[in-house]
């Protein structure tokens, strides 16, 4: 049994403890966001695979009408937003692991975020257009 008088020295500063950001200097936000998007993507991905399977071989008007229906458009938009958010979070970790020159790493991460944002916007706008013209 440890003696009550035993003194434990904590090297960590009280400011660091209060900030709670740990060794990454950014807290657990990135890690949590990766998991939350992953949880949401599980049902969305299953829905999307089934939806694509049930529309195989159909022509553009049929796909456009399907994607334009409000609930389908909403689920597609959710899938797009969460997919590209999850993607840039995941790619960031990959770059952080393999690119050791900080300036180059940050440049690549920023380019990745920009590309994911543009691709997500393009896909989202396509869905919104289909939703706007669908009958």
């Amino acid at each position, binding site marked *: 049994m440890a003696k009550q008088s035993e003194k434990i020295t904590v090297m960590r500063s009280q400011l660091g403890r209060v900030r709670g950001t740990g060794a990454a200097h950014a807290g657990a936000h990135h890690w949590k966001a990766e998991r939350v998007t*992953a949880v949401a993507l599980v049902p969305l991905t299953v829905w999307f695979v089934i939806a694509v*399977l049930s529309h195989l071989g159909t022509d553009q008007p049929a796909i456009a009408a399907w994607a334009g229906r409000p609930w389908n458009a909403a689920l597609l938009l959710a899938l797009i937003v969460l997919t590209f958010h999850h993607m840039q979070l995941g790619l960031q970790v990959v770059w952080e692991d393999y690119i050791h020159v900080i300036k180059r790493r940050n440049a690549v991460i920023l380019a990745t975020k920009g590309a994911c944002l543009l691709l997500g916007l393009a896909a989202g706008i396509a869905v919104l257009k289909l939703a706007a013209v669908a009958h």
Partner: protein
Amino acid sequence: MNDIRDALLVARDSQHGLIRRPVSPHIGIYRWPITMVASILNRATGIALCAGSLLLVWWLVAAASGPQDFAIVEGFIASPLGLLLLLGWTASLFYHLLSGIRHLLWDAGTGLEKPSLNPVTWLVLALTFVATVLVWFAGYMALGV
């Protein structure tokens, strides 16, 4: 030498020549546990899906642009290269999905016990294969070819 840490990895052999110290895990003598394969595959399929997402964007944008553009995408997907990419995309999607669920269970604090690690990992690989085959079988049945 471009990193200060490299200094610790350099040593001299018995002939006084400079050598690099081995780092762990030393791939040459390391038997790959299935969990290590699964971990690498999770990242590899994640990167593959980034490329695959271009197909999703192209498909949606073409659907919103009109029948001509959509026919180009459909033609590409139906080509041998397109089908091969779609097969890789399907397998990557199912692997990343199932492996991701495994990771989420670990994050929730379950399944980290040694006896369950390997069976669950093999199960993920088996289910990936089954799901991919099932979806492609269903697809060809739906198309009637």
